[in-house]
């Protein structure tokens, strides 16, 4: 090895296990700081949004500034309820995995608003191309917990017939595309889907999410290029939850000032939003959706948030980040912040919140119990074995019929 000073460097997070975490270095703008531009504003005119942080809820739980979305108390309550239900669902499913009733799970703790608020801001006919932590969006779209659980344990009611990993929900009826196991493929597909909608003369748009780590995939850059080239009516989200399993976002982000800033080179608006601020996520998504529907083309939204739990049930975050880093996250908890806002509005109270939490807990327990009546992970019943040979092609070819016969089913 030569003796010259190394000229390369591998980024490292500010804090590792044992360190005292702190986020004062982030220097984030205050809620209400940014003006809300016209939905058809020139992308070049609104570059500041890619470096700032759109926020609506301030420390006193007031909705402040231009971006306040004006959601009704009913809409806010619905959003809060969905987030709480999502959290209870996650909690139960983690416990089921820890006791081997489920093989694998991924929680969305701390990121509930990213999925739920965005979905509430979209139309039911808009197609979602999700990533791993948008189960709240699926619940917001009306998925029954029983169905989600049955998929996760591959029992006889699993609509994916035992062919997909847990949490890779797929619901055409709810305009929810499959979760991609190889990360990022859904981004160009969302661009294509949105173009198909436009070419058919329809108004539906597509909305996709990837994580901060996946921005390093070619899919991200290809999707940005193609969305820009064709002015595709698509909302592209990067959920920057700071961590890609154990790799801090500086590994994928490099020297980029933000993930939203990556949009600038493509001539696409890039907006960084406080992902733990339900109102801000709803407002920014609505802006992007209106822009797309109004012919303004794609928007890249970076939801700035923190992954409150492990990446999945397969990793132990205490090995790679401070245990209390989530508590130190300066943007708080999306559920608590929306709860406080609703209480401040006089549209919710602590008692109602506790009652709803208890109701969710019960609903999740009941759903699990019902799910087990359709079979358990280990004992089944699972999808009928002959279905293993179906859906490879739209019509079953002879060699698959033969393989099924050879299996005696």
């Amino acid at each position: 090895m030569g003796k010259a000073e190394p000229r390369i460097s591998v980024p490292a997070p500010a804090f590792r296990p044992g360190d005292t975490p702190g986020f004062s270095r982030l220097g984030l703008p205050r809620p209400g700081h940014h003006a809300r531009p016209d939905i058809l504003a020139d992308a070049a005119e609104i570059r500041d949004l890619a470096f700032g942080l759109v926020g609506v809820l301030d420390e006193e739980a007031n909705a402040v500034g231009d971006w306040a979305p004006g959601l009704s108390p009913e809409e806010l309550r619905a959003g809060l309820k969905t987030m709480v239900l999502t959290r209870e669902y996650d909690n139960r499913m983690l416990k089921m995995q820890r006791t081997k009733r489920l093989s694998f799970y991924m929680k969305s703790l701390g990121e509930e608003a990213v999925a739920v608020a965005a979905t509430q801001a979209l139309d039911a006919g808009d197609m979602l191309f999700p990533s791993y932590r948008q189960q709240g969006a699926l619940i917001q779209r009306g998925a029954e917990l029983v169905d989600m659980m049955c998929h996760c344990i591959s029992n006889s009611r699993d609509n994916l017939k035992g062919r997909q990993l847990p949490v890779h929900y797929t619901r055409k009826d709810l305009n929810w595309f499959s979760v991609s196991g190889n990360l990022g493929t859904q981004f160009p597909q969302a661009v294509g889907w949105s173009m198909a909608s436009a070419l058919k003369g329809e108004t539906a748009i597509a909305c996709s999410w990837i994580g901060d780590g996946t921005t390093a995939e070619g899919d991200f850059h290809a999707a940005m290029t193609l969305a820009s080239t064709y002015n595709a009516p698509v909302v592209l989200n990067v959920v920057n939850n700071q961590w890609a399993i154990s790799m801090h976002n500086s590994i994928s982000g490099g020297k980029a000032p933000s993930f939203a800033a990556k949009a600038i080179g493509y001539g696409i608006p890039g907006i960084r939003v406080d992902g733990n601020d339900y109102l801000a996520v709803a407002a920014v998504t609505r802006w992007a959706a209106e822009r797309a529907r109004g012919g303004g083309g794609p928007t890249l939204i970076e939801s700035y948030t923190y992954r409150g739990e492990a990446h999945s049930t397969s990793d132990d975050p205490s090995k790679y980040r401070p245990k209390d880093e989530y508590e130190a996250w300066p943007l708080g908890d999306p559920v608590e912040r929306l709860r406080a806002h609703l209480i401040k509005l006089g549209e919710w109270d602590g008692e109602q919140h506790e009652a709803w939490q208890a109701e969710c807990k019960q609903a999740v327990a009941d759903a699990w119990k019902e799910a087990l009546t359709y079979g358990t992970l280990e004992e089944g019943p699972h999808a009928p074995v002959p279905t293993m040979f179906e859906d490879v092609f739209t019509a079953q070819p002879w060699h698959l019929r033969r393989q099924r016969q050879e299996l005696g089913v």
Partner: protein
Amino acid sequence: MSVDILMPALSPTMEEGTLSKWLKKEGDRIESGDVIAEIETDKATMEVEAVDEGTLARILIPEGTEGVKVNAVIALLAEEGEDTSDVSACEPAANGSAIEAEAPSPPPAPEPAPATMGHNSANLIDPDLPEGTSFTDTAIRDALRDAMAEEMRRDDKVLILGEEVAEYQGAYKVTRELLQEFGAERVIDTPITEHGFAGVGVGLAFGGLKPIVEFMTFNFAMQAIDQIINSAAKTLYMSGGQMGCPIVFRGPNGAAARVGAQHSQDYAPWYGHVPGLKVIAPYDAADAKGLLKAAIRDPNPVVFLEHELLYGESHPVPDLDDYVLPIGKAKIRREGRHVTLTAHSRMVGFALKAAEILAGDGIEAEVIDLRTIRPLDTQTIVESVKKTNRIVTCEEAWRFMGVGAEICATVVNEAFDYLDAPPTRVTQKDVPLPYAGNLEALSLPGTEDIVAAARTVCEGM
């Protein structure tokens, strides 16, 4: 029936822990969600929550026990109406992993097996040409173009995208005049990102259109292979049949002339390997047209492999309004009784020339144009071998794991007793295709290689 309560894991790396405290005692009524015990490791403590409801029938691990393995049975729960004294005390599994299996419910009776089926190509028949049908000599690039134009006229959901397909009319002029007829929204130039526009094509298909994605050559589709295989080919299956991907990926495949290893490769075995894809590799203009029309109409993803060196060759194409051929049917291009030659794409021409030469030796070769790689028409191949007793497979790809390997294995399996000689393969040399003309020619298989292989298998005939 009692329910086992298991020692939970606090994290994926936890193997054992201390059962520090029972918060319920035997005989207590338990509601789902009740905290029944506390466990701890050197790192943290955790509450054990009841999943099911019932009566705590037996505590198997007393509180204070250290080193309790994850997933060991720590207690038994009697369900509603069950006498807790009936709950048998099963020993906690020693290694913590064995859970007493309940008797599985009997599986549903298997549906009666259908009558044994042979290969299916018998019901796939090329359309009858009406008497007096005229033919027009057509270059393959124009036959392909006509197929796309006809399908785009027939179905406004069909569109084409790729590099240089619009203004430039295609790098090989296969999309000639399509832009003029169908406009820029159906004939779409793309930036140079095969992975990106293949992904957009897949999204267009999920969105209800029927895209044709042109790769300037299939060599460049290597970048897009994740979208082709992991998304286009697998989504119908993985989505439980909810979402399919009707799409055609097409473009020149195989060796062109003097363009080097990165521009000269036959991908038929690569795509042929994948369940969920159909793979077509035609030889003449009529097949190119009839099969591309079939591919565009097919509800499954289709990889359509053309050949750069064949684009300019002309063959008679029937003058019919709608000439569509079945996918999955090989074509016997020359009948013979001494040796079967199988080939696809450009190799069919070499096989036909070889058959001509062999005829001079008194060897009557039967030439089978595979036309479709997947589903492969093994019926036609096996029946031919039962007649000729010998087979030489011909392909431009490398031998290892090639199309010929699959054919030879099938023939050995299904016509072993008919074989008079070992099945033989003619392929490219096992090197990346060299650039220099002399080396390129030596590397690629041609007529002489087929003749030599056929003579060898026919020795002592």
